[in-house]
């Protein structure tokens, strides 16, 4: 499954023409990422179906948007670099760690993915819904499935 996702991501990276513009919805509908469980996209993770809930901070929002686009394109290294820049601006932004977790997971770094999810969880404990979402991510990573 993961290989298929990565292959499709890489293929899609060639389709995107306009850098850092919104992602074509028809592409998204058919995208392997759309097959991921809905809960992943509810609050913290990449919003494939629009209605992204990016943070208020403009710089953070820009970096996360750019990171998401690189993620879709399969440029995982570029995505990670952008997420680390976002982390430097806001060290306690849980969605950064959730994205890092997912990135590591796709790259097969299960241990790294789990630790990033734990970091995110420690930051969202006061928000019950979000907290549940991260816990599900953590459980899925630990079970090594989605």
């Amino acid at each position: 499954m993961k290989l298929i996702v990565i292959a499709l991501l890489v293929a899609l990276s060639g389709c995107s023409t306009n850098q850092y513009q919104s992602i074509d919805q028809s592409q998204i509908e058919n995208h392997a990422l759309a097959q991921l469980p809905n809960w992943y996209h509810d609050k913290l993770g990449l919003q494939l179906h629009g209605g992204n809930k990016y943070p208020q901070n403009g710089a953070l929002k820009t970096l996360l948007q750019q990171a998401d686009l690189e993620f879709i394109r399969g440029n995982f290294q570029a995505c990670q670099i952008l997420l680390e820049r976002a982390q430097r601006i806001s060290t306690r932004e849980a969605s950064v760690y959730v994205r890092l977790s997912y990135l590591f997971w796709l790259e097969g770094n299960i241990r790294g993915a789990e630790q990033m999810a734990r970091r995110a969880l420690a930051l969202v404990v006061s928000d019950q819904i979000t907290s549940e979402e991260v816990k599900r991510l953590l459980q899925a990573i630990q079970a090594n499935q989605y």
Partner: protein
Amino acid sequence: MKNHSTSRFKTFVSWLLKLAIVGGVVLAILMAYLDAQIREKFEGKRWALPAKVFARPLELYPSLVIKPKYLVQELDQIGYQRVPNVQTPGQYSYNGQEMDIFRRYVKLYDGDETAARIHIRFNNEVIDGLWLDGKPTTLARLEPLLIGGIYPKHNEDRQLIQLSEAPELLLKTLVAVEDRDFHHHFGISFKGIARAMVMNVQSGRLVQGGSTLTQQLVKNFFLTRERTLIRKATEALMALLVELHYSKNDILETYLNEVYLGQSGRRAIHGFGLASQFYFGKHIGNLTAPEIATLVGMVKGPSVYNPKRKPENAIARRNVVLNVMHEQGLISDYQLAVWEKRQLDVVQYSQYQRVEYPAFLDLVKRQLRSDYADSDLTSEGLRIYTSLDPIIQRSAEQAMSKRLAQLESGYRMPQDSLQGAIVVASTESGEVEAVVGDRNPRFFGFNRALDANRSIGSLAKPAVYLTALRSPQYHYITPLDDSEIKIASTNGHVWQPENYSKKSHGTLPLYQAMARSLNQATARLGLQVGLENIVKTFNDLGVKQHIPAYPSIVLGAFEMNPFDVAQMYQTIAASGFHTPLKTIRGVTTAKGELLSRYGYEVKQAIKTEPIYLLQKIMQQVVREGTARYLNTQFNESLNLAGKTGTSDSQRDSWFAGFSGDKLAVVWLGRDDNESMPLTGASGALRVWAQTFKDLPLKPLYPLPTENIVEQWVDVEQNALSSEGCDGAQLLPFIKDQLPLMSVDCANQSSTEKPWWSRIFN
């Protein structure tokens, strides 16, 4: 008689012939050897290019808190020129509220930033508007400061240029001044030698050498500076060979890159490419005629005619060169008259006249050593992008030198007797942002931040209290006994720790024992929780060195260096998430291809709940404990946390403190390990405060979990209480680790105090 003479003559000729043959063979072998040397040098890699190390690129965005003066300092340091109206890349203007920066093209490990105009509007010390090329933007990066290089042993630095990049005027002037027959001779110029001899005879001393540019190049490349006939002969032979193999343009380009043009500290400035940046802050292609004259004039004597150190000599020499230019028809009468009167216009600040950060560079080199060979670092021209924050680094350096001088005079200590080290890191990312390893921050030598292994004293206590809080038997107000304690070891030695005040404090709650840094209570607690468990906590916090499970470790009677202490406290500051402290973000080739990247790593080392309690206690240390001085210097709402440390006989003064985003560890002491009249609170803490006094810090909010509860308790009774009860305090607890008893608030209130007392008190 005649026959005899003829025979002697024949013998002489025969010997001469033999000698000539032998000499010819030797010369041929020598030529072949020299030829091989020349070819190897010219056709292989001609120069070892040192790695260049860069600070972090400053990210600008609306809501960023930054004092405009710091931004101005950074721009000055990276060689930007302040002008009334910005017109070209590398300039900026600032009117007190708004700043215009024309960013130069920037090469970074994660992509390039194009040249662009950045407009910033400040609201006090906050950026509240940002535009890129006239359009509002959310983010803009500046170019990073070049903070040093990793040089080969001879410390040569250069910026390679191609011949086509050099202005025609520079080439013509260089040839006119140094070697007029350059385009006509074959390596050696007899005309040049004759001219030099005439000049020298006329003036009665050595004023001119007869060396051609080719000979000078050969001398710099292959030979020593000694003035012997053999060296001169070898130089001449090699010059001939160089001319035989290579074109005049190739020789001239090599010369432009090789020639020595001054010194900047330990760094030798080679080549016109680097020299034009170093002295005039501009690319070689943009040099003006007087600047060209200054640089060409320096070839004769880079120290004597150094425009920064000896401006009068440099002006005189420049004018000589300008006259040569005029004589050769390169400049007009009017230009000569005007330029002879012109100032040198060397830049005060330049990216290439950098301030080096030896302690930080030392750490960078050590961290690179596992991935790169020394020869790669000193010869391949790698570009190393780090996390150093020049603003924080400068502040830490100034705090160290200022406070040490104050402490020495205040406590009547001998001048320059104190030494110190500082490590500053981001709590979450683990990126090291500043390192000071000596009170003289420019000193390349013993790096105390990494190599001063000293007793950590009470900085060990958080590990003891954390060990207790990790076990279900202890909570925030567990009563601890602070009475005298004697511990006998197996060899009969008795260890009897005392409090700093030499007094005992009876029974007191756990958090107060830590906030007041009580040794006797901590020693008892340490023995109760188990030394092996404490060692495990140290390891979990990231301490890699072996710590023996002796009782005295609970009071820090073992040695660590400031960097390792910072690593331990990073885990505490980041809520139990351990991140290896790192300095490097990425490494690229000289051309910008990414070679390696050092990304964010994290591991939950300690559960969040006990760390939450520990952070709360460390905030108490600042609020009312041994580090309360901080509360007089910083806004209380920052909720700073920390721990002071003083080793036995006051040989070491430590402070480790953190906010929501920064962690810093400060050590002060003497190199001879003698005692000082300083504690952690009166020494290192002051340096910490001075470092951050002018820097923006984010408040620290310990991260609670669903297992953390705030509970009203009666501290004296070690019992649960209720809001409004006498002495009731709202304190944090782990859900399953609450005091077992509870006090009857109703009885207590009615029996202990009359109603009017409750109303009016």
